[in-house]
């Protein structure tokens, strides 16, 4: 049992941290967030060159052979800079599903181009009505001989507008809410019948709603096993959420620290507002919330890395706490900054928005806690 990072991991952190500090000043980030693409293609190539896009992939595939711990480290540093590039969508979600598909032809065909930065990917697993339920899938995949025809609409697909390839969850059997009977398909974004409408989220992330009208696909487009897409998704979601947990802790630490520093500088009634005990005790609460979240993060990331039975439970605990602690920390950051915190010009509000988006990402705190309860309180 140990909670320290390897030499290699510390170097990884340093290199990402340096990039964020040098290339990702808030004003630069704000300009990027307002471009049509929503991120920098140039940065993406830098990520490829520095090997960051290869982190989760095996050395055989040309990857770094890293674990979720490495992804977590990367995302923590990204969180500090509110990095916009679609690492989560392309590498963790899209790449993650391919990586766990067990389909070596598909891996060989796709992973190298993720690693070299030439393919942008997306995972389309939610629909208009599905809220946080991965299993609520209406999109239909109908079999015609050796082919499938996909029809339906997918909502809020991260990186959906920029993606070259999209993994789509569709129903091949079962009812609308069943875990079984969901199959994942690899869809070329340019293929006939795929239409995408891009829009922006409040944290600057570009997403898309994607409609599929009789999109014809071969049997080879199936990712993983027929009807077993839900289990594959859940595994990838667990891995992704531990990395996103890293991002969350990066954001939280930043908000907490910025707030503490602000109270040291800001004077009211002739003294620094950090000298008011009521504020001090509230900032102690946000400090403790950061520490407790980090503990659950380490717990979950080890659980997932070691493929423990309780991995899903640990991830749900983490996700619940990220939602709750994130709300507390965001609220306090805004409240203690006062008026200036309420302006678009200051970075604080942007960090808060990112935390809010992380909360709803694959299930908010209330949802995650109920799912956690189902596992924890099963008799």
């Amino acid at each position, binding site marked *: 049992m140990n909670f320290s990072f390897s030499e290699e991991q510390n170097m990884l952190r340093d290199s990402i941290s340096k990039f964020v500090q040098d290339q990702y000043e808030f004003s630069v980030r704000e300009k990027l967030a307002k471009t049509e693409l929503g991120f920098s293609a140039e940065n993406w190539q830098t990520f490829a060159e520095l090997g960051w896009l290869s982190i989760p992939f095996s050395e055989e595939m040309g990857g770094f052979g890293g674990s979720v711990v490495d992804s977590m480290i990367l995302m923590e540093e990204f969180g500090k800079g509110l990095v916009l590039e679609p690492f989560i969508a392309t590498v963790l979600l899209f790449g993650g599903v391919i990586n766990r598909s067990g389909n070596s032809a598909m891996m060989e065909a796709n992973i190298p181009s993720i690693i070299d930065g030439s393919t942008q990917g997306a995972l389309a697993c939610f629909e208009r009505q599905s809220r946080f339920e991965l299993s609520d899938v209406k999109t239909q995949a109908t079999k015609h001989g050796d082919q499938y025809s996909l029809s339906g609409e997918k909502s809020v697909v991260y990186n959906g507008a920029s993606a070259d390839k999209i993994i789509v969850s569709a129903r091949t059997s079962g009812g609308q809410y069943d875990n079984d009977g969901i199959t994942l398909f690899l869809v070329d974004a340019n293929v006939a019948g795929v239409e995408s409408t891009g829009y922006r989220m409040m944290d600057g992330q570009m997403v898309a709603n994607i409609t599929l009208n009789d999109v014809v696909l071969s049997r080879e487009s199936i990712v993983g096993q027929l009807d077993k897409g839900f289990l594959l998704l859940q595994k990838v979601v667990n891995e992704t959420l531990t990395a996103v947990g890293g991002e969350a802790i990066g954001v939280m630490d930043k908000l907490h620290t910025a707030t503490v520093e602000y109270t040291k500088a800001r004077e009211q009634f002739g003294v620094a507002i950090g000298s008011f005990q*009521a504020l001090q005790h509230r900032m102690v609460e946000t400090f403790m919330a950061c520490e407790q979240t980090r503990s659950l993060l380490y717990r979950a990331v080890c659980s997932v890395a070691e493929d423990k039975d309780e991995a899903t439970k640990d991830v749900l605990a983490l996700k619940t706490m990220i939602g709750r602690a994130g709300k507390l920390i965001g609220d306090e950051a805004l*409240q203690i900054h006062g008026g200036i915190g309420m302006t678009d010009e200051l970075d604080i509000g942007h960090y808060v928005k990112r935390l809010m988006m992380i909360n709803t990402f694959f299930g908010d705190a209330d949802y995650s806690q109920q799912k956690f309860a189902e596992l924890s309180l099963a008799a």
Partner: protein
Amino acid sequence: MDTTFSAEDLAFRDEVRVFLANTFTDDLKARLSAKSTYKAAQVEWQQSLNNQGWFAVNWPTEYGGSGWTPTQKFIFENERSLAGAPGTIPFGVSMVAPVIYGFGSDEQKARFLPRILNSEDWWCQGYSEPGAGSDLAALKTKAVLDGDDYVVNGAKIWTTYAQLADWIFCLVRTDSSGKKQDGISFLLIDMKTPGIKVNPIIGIDNQHTLNEVEFNEVRVPKANLIGEQDKGWTYAKALLSHERTAIAGVAQSKRHLSELKKVAAVELSAGKPLLDDPSIRKNITDIEIELMALEYTELRVLAAAAAGSSPGAESSLLKIKGTEIQQSIQKLRMDLAGVYSGVFVGGDIDSLSGHEFSDKARVEYMYGRAATVYGGSNEVQKNIISKFVLGL
């Protein structure tokens, strides 16, 4: 002790309902929600209220106040909110007017009050300054008497709707020698005066509601000074507890909560209405119970005020609890919107996403963060209660 309505109260309620049905039309509603027509529509609405004698609900009747009992105020607010009709912009009628009729000269009363009553002037508030937040009295904007004019230099910040305003009422420093509460004066300033510049501030809601207002050698006639020079703090203070009471927004919160119950009844998770979800049930009823309490707290404060006791520290309670409830409702709305709570671009996308309330959810949530900061931050309100109620 009873909560029944008298026959007169019931008749009044009917009258309000008829008025709202006739006046708050779909057409007006549409114009109120479009940016380009908002100001004119809001003025029209306030003028309709004034024609009915229902605009200046807290003024003494001699100046045109409605002369309502607490019960009537309660009934009107409830009906107005139920109908979804807007409140009145407070800066003129609720904020500067009491200072004018309380401490202004007869000339000032005659000049300003009728125009406020008829919503001919749009007022904004010049209190906060860059660098002086909750510590209002630390303000630095300077006014120096030069002949018959004060010459004003400095800046005010967080000024709501300054871009729409005809007039601004300001606290300015006329003397820096004593303690900071002394040496502050209360000035009424025409926004068209040369030297005033309005700089928009975009909020975290991505809207332009707030502004910074710069004063550069702005000449304000001495006739626009309220009461005595250097005594402005006294006048402003009298007004503050009023502002806090108004911020509570109980009737509005009741309406929002009942709207959200309807949303929760139709939004689904795994095919079941969110209204059946235990977390949502707890979140809604947590708010509802606090709000039911606050409604009666407000009634108790109104009743005490009608019986002659001025709302003092109790108004701080209304402000704290009222804004906490507003924020809880905004949070609940975001929770109901789920992933759609983050959708940034309005218009087309809203209909695409199938969740039309999500854009409103985000904007109101983000704008609402300021409620616990403005009007004296909730921390300052707690200090007030601690000092004046608990004696600590």
